[in-house]
């Protein structure tokens, strides 16, 4: 399975299992979504359960709030994360708050799926990475898989979560990675990072499409005699401080890799956590390998912006030599 198949499979399983699960969004029905993630599901589960919505993202999120309050488990798709912003008010004012506001009376078992990130030679607004913004909003969970297996397991967990989940899909690797993935249902827990590569000298924290780059960087670093530990964050919020802290306590050095803008981003949070959880173990300043504080350039300029294995290696070497 590639990631597209895995997500489709998770949706299929949960729709089959639970009639309260419904899926809607722009073009998710007949067409199966612009990335074909929901392909075939309308045929199988019917137009009442998976359907095209009018072109209105606030409408998507706002109606989901009502459906969830009434007991459904809506899964909505934002066609691109860069087009989720018209829904911002509904998400920050209601999706994330209704449960608290009603003192637990009204659940918000909502999943908001959105492809995100750069590297696909797309038009403006199609390459955004705004996970830090969602992470900063109390009441949301924010999840990002880096491979088909996790994509499936995390989506199952997200759909089963009683609380709202922003489920961000690294579209750049939608079809880039194939894995054997169990056909039957399994869950990957939200809130747990995973050490996907053991190492001794330095910790790399990454997620989504950056995992691939981190892995390549680790391979390059190995040739330089540097042993890299890689943590796949998997959940942006609630963030897994323990796994990060433990790794730093071993390696003494940490770099966060993210394609989002640097200022006020995920990498800053991880620097702060490094300080709070493992200050005395730090042998070099926690480093941020992040996007520039600029707009993602159009395709011809995107290579300047994207984080590469070499850029990571460069910072690994600088940090180890510090």
């Amino acid at each position, binding site marked *: 399975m590639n990631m597209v198949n895995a997500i489709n499979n998770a949706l299929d399983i949960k729709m089959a299992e639970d009639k309260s699960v419904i899926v809607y969004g722009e073009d998710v029905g007949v067409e199966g979504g612009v990335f074909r993630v929901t392909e075939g599901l309308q045929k199988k589960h019917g137009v009442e359960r998976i359907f095209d919505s009018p072109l209105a993202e606030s409408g998507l999120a706002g109606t989901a*709030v009502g*459906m969830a309050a009434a007991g459904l488990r809506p899964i909505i798709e934002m066609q691109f994360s860069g087009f989720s912003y018209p829904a911002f008010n509904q998400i920050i004012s209601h999706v994330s708050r209704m449960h608290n506001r009603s*003192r637990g009376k009204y659940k918000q078992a909502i999943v908001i799926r959105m492809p995100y990130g750069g590297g696909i030679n797309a038009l403006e607004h199609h390459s955004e990475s705004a996970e830090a913004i969602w992470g900063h909003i109390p009441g949301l969970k924010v999840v990002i898989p880096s491979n088909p297996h996790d994509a499936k397991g995390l989506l199952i967990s997200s759909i089963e979560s009683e609380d709202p989940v922003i489920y961000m899909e690294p579209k750049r690797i939608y079809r880039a990675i194939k894995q054997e993935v169990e056909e039957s249902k399994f869950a990957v827990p939200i809130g747990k990072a995973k050490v996907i590569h053991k190492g001794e000298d330095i910790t790399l924290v990454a997620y989504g499409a950056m995992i691939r780059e981190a892995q390549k960087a680790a391979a390059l670093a190995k040739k330089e005699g540097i042993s890299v530990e890689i943590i796949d964050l998997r959940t942006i919020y609630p963030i897994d401080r323990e796994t990060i802290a433990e790794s730093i306590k071993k390696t003494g050095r940490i770099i966060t890799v993210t394609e989002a803008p640097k200022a006020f981003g995920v990498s800053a949070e991880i620097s702060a956590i490094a300080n709070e959880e493992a200050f005395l173990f730090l042998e070099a300043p926690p480093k941020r390998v992040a996007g520039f504080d600029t707009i993602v350039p159009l395709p011809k300029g995107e290579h300047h912006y994207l984080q590469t294995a070499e850029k990571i290696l460069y910072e690994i070497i600088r940090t180890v030599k510090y």
Partner: protein
Amino acid sequence: MFKEYNPIKKKRLQIIDNDGKVINQKLMPKLDDKQLIKAYKDMLFARTADLMIVNYQRQGRIYTYPPNYGQEAISGAVAQIMRDDDWLVPAFREMGAYLAKGASLKELFIYFMGYEDGSLFKNAKNFLPISVPISSQLLHASGIGYEINYNNKDQIVYTFVGDGGTSEGDFHEALNFAGVWKAPVIFIVQNNQYGISTPFKMQTASDGIAIKALAYGIEGIQVDGNDFFAMYKAVEESAKHASGGNGPVLIEAVTYRKGAHTTSDDPTKYRTKEEEEKWDETDPLKRLKAYLIANKLWSEKEEEKIVPQYKKEIDRQFIEAENYGEYALEDVFKFMYTEMPQDIKNQMMEHEKFLKWKEARS
């Protein structure tokens, strides 16, 4: 009726005049005496409470409050028709509807005293909390409407918004979604002529709000919102329409906010005494009362007797609310998620440590 009052005809549904005389017998809703008296009492109770809350606020015993004064017929009509199972998706200026849904004044007081607990509405089924971001609640109503259709339920959603709220994008999206989905939602716009200080003519160039229904292919009707009978009739027909699988209705209830926008507002800054007096003539309680008295269903004496009883009851609930007690630290954290994430637990524990330190120091 929706044909007769199609908004392009620029007609406003009215059944009694300012003196409570029936001017539209044909559309007079069938209500028996008991029902009529109950309706009036509901409105009277709501108004009594409303005026008292404004006083409580002046005494510093409650925080900011948005008075309903002058708009009671709208909620009053909904209150008589809305069923237990129906949904109520409120804005913040329709107290009569909340009470009808099963909310207690005490809970509302607790809410306006600054506790989230006041949104729990223990005995109210299918009642969302008050929604502050203007118009955003309308989409929730459309979503619930989808659920009702999806599960073939016999329910209707009542939702409220102000004239100012019709300018928000969410108003448009909510009515559009509901239209496409044929969702059983009654959108009630309380056109009270102002959004805070902004007069209606600065909200939109359209001729009223009911006409906006045409943009969504749904029924719309403009109603004299200070005429209880007209409101009753409109809501009754809308409920039939929506229940029958015919989709949503937009009701424009033309009314006037006799009080301030909220207790922090001073309307003398932006409107004239003359205007206020003109609208006073249309006061909804005055009109229904005149009708009832003319029909020997009510008297000044009864009113003089009952209002003090109401006041006592309201005050009792208010004092109960005032004794609601401490806001526990845990209440800040407890409902953020169904289960508290470790991080949030830690933040709470760290804060408790600080509180201990603080206590030890003092």
